[in-house]
């Protein structure tokens, strides 16, 4: 059930109606948990059991960790939880990748292990990370364990962030379950605004330029150098609008239902360096990797060499988290190397004008998308060869869709900067169009559309009509669903 589909719209409306009729907080949570299971079952009913099993194991493990003071016993339960989560992730996501890689070596001796063709359960990378953060936090005594299994199952299975994040930590979500929050008029307005913005990013930009990026990456050798760059720009815009659009929709849905999720994107393509990029792109994953991988590895506390190794290792594993393929490892390695270079650059006290840094970062991030998007090493090589070989023939074309998307994204960033720098006090423009800039402790700054003035109603209706009438008609899956 894709967020941008009619089916999801029906599901959400029905759920909001149901929740608004329920008075008790407990019943509301139960209804929401069941709805989340239904949502997941609509994706893949076969693995709903796996989701609930992981929830159950981590719930028990955390309770056991909390109950005992014996360090060995606590550690044993933590290891049990980690092995279960990572074992499931490794089996479902990486088995075929490992066999395939092993076959590369065995092939020399004329042997081959048959692939198992394991089906990847939807959202497994996200919910295992979510659940692991809970047991680790309880182990570190940073979080009290959840007392009710139902509440914990609700946290893990919450449908808004289940399939493609943001990776919400238990410390952020579980306390919200104690409050009597539900769909209110204000929350509907705020969440609805965020949902519409996300929907616009997905349907008006990502889904419109996706086919252009697909065409170029499918057969880079057939295109001219200019078209290769056009395809790369298209993918750079597509992945941002697709993923940040999904995150906006997830945050919006959660807000409408009465819960708050953390911000996942903060205009990453305006970053002045790679380190800043990772503070603005997929923020919840970067923070997860920082807190549960980089810092436990030693972070920057064990000397410069170890810091660089830790950075590289964290990004390599971050790359592998995205997908079972060497191209993702390469993507992670590129970002890891860039982070090391940036760290060394800063250490030597070198400086660069911010604009130059922004251009360089954007260029690096865009080029790093090549291995991320290309299916294998050969395709990566072919695409890079096209990008650096002007005047070597190939088909050419001027897709105005990419130009329009570029303008829309640029306009969106200008609006984003305006929102970032504007006061939450309403100015004339905000009053005329009934706009509100809201500072949210978790979700960051967001724009809320209103309909209390003619201008506001006009703007809101027009935005909805533009998306409905000119957005892509097919509900194509979000890119991050496959991770």
């Amino acid at each position, binding site marked *: 059930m894709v967020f941008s589909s009619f089916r999801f719209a029906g599901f959400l409306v029905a759920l909001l109606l149901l929740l608004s009729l329920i008075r008790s907080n407990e019943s509301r949570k139960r209804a929401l948990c069941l709805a989340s299971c239904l949502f997941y079952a609509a994706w893949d009913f076969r693995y709903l059991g796996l989701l609930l099993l992981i929830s159950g194991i981590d719930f028990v493990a955390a309770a056991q960790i909390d109950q005992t003071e014996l360090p060995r016993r606590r550690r044993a339960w933590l290891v049990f939880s980690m092995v279960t989560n990572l074992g499931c992730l490794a089996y479902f996501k990486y088995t075929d990748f490992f066999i395939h890689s092993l076959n590369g070596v065995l092939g020399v001796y004329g042997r081959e292990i048959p692939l198992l063709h394991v089906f990847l359960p939807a959202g497994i990378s996200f919910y295992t990370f979510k659940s692991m953060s809970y047991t680790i936090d309880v182990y570190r005594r940073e979080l009290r364990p959840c007392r009710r299994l139902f509440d914990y199952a609700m946290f893990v299975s919450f449908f808004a962030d289940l399939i493609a994040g943001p990776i919400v930590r238990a410390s*952020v979500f579980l306390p919200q379950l104690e409050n009597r929050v539900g769909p209110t008029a204000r929350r509907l307005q705020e969440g609805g605004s965020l949902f519409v913005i996300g929907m616009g990013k997905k349907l008006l930009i990502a889904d419109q330029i996706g086919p252009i990026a697909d065409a170029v990456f499918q057969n880079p050798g057939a295109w001219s150098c200019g078209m290769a760059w056009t395809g790369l720009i298209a993918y750079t815009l597509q992945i941002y609008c697709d993923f940040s659009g999904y995150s906006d929709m997830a945050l919006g849905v959660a807000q409408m239902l009465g819960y708050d999720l953390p911000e996942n994107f903060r205009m990453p393509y305006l970053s002045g360096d790679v380190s800043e990029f990772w503070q603005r792109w997929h923020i919840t994953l970067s923070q997860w990797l920082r807190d549960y991988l980089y810092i436990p590895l030693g972070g920057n506390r064990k000397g410069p060499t170890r810091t660089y190794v830790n950075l590289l290792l964290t990004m390599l594993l971050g790359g592998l988290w995205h997908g079972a393929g060497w191209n993702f490892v390469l993507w992670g390695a590129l970002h890891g190397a860039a982070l090391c270079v940036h760290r060394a650059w800063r250490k030597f006290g070198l400086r660069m004008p911010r604009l130059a840094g922004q251009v360089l970062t954007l260029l690096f991030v865009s080029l790093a998308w090549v291995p991320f998007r290309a299916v294998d090493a050969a395709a990566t090589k072919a695409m890079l060869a096209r990008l650096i070989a002007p005047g070597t023939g190939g088909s050419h074309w001027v897709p105005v869709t990419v130009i329009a998307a570029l303008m829309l994204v640029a306009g969106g960033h200008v609006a984003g900067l305006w929102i970032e720098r504007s006061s939450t006090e309403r100015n004339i423009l905000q009053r005329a169009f009934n706009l509100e800039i809201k500072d949210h402790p978790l979700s960051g700054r967001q724009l809320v559309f209103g309909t209390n003035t003619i201008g506001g109603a006009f703007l809101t209706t027009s935005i909805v*009509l533009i998306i409905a*009438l000119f957005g892509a008609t097919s509900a194509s899956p979000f890119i991050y669903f496959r991770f």
Partner: protein
Amino acid sequence: MTANHKAEELERIGGKEAISPTTPLPKGRRLPAIVAAVCGIALSLLAFEMAFRLLLFGKEGRDPVTHLPVTTGIHRIGEGFASSHRDHQGVRLSPNPCSGCPRVLVIGDSYTDAFQVDDTEAFTAVAETMLAGAHPVRLLNAGVAGASPADYLVQAARYRRRLQPAWTVIELNADDLGRDAFLPDKVHFRQEGGRLSLVVPAPYEYGRITQTLGFIREQSALANYAIARLDFARQGPKGPPWFRAGFDSGTRSVPQASQFYPLEHELSLLRSAYGNRVTFLFLPLFNTPIENEEIRFERYCRETTTSCLNFRESFEGFQRIGTAPYGFPNSRFAGGHLNTAGHVAVARLLAMELRRLQQNGLF
């Protein structure tokens, strides 16, 4: 901000919202706010309605025989940027129509009606200009999107009576002769014991809902577009089906392609319906291997010495310079309908053939 602080902050917000879920407007301001909202929504709808009326400036109707939608004037923006104008007979307007010249009827589907290019850029208009000097011809473009050989056959008598062509050009592609001519929900062929018969479905008997929707569509260009789009979205790729594992991209339901279509029989029927004064213009897809239908088409033309044109012979020129005859900057490369360069190339082929036919005294 630590996790505990965040939790406290959330608790605070949650508690506050539980007491005061919304910021209600003061009593005296509620009505003006509702009126403002209604006015704003109405204004927006009106603006969109006007924009859509500007895009669809001609009359939209249905062909009485084939029931296919026919539009007399439209600005196309989704695939190419162009304006099309048609006369009351459904013939696309030509920039410099030649009066008293031999009339050549050109029929076909959306590749011929060519909403994606301006009136002056359609291959019929370009070919007319190319032939204007020594061999002037009036080319009557009566292409209709969605039409197939079954439609051309059922319209033959009417076209010949009304437009009185000296020659007819029929634009075809592999799908036209195969799948599209056998779709059961429109005029189509039926195979019965080696015979090919034409089935003309009875006029649609609309239900009450369809009638109401039809009425709304006639009144509002915006509603017309929205309903058509809804229908398109309904037919397009869908998300995964309920309670089924994996992702199913979903496709439109079409008859099995493995069926053996009697192309030769169809072509013969068309030839005789238009008085054996026919040129078949075949438009294959770009950069795709030759399909079986195309081979059979070529063989039929050779064996019956019919006047035939195959657009594939122009492909090499496009491949050499790295462009394509199909596709627009706002659609996709090498896909969809003929672009301006494609129309010029088709016009060149057509003009050469019509000149040859004229020189041979065939019209």
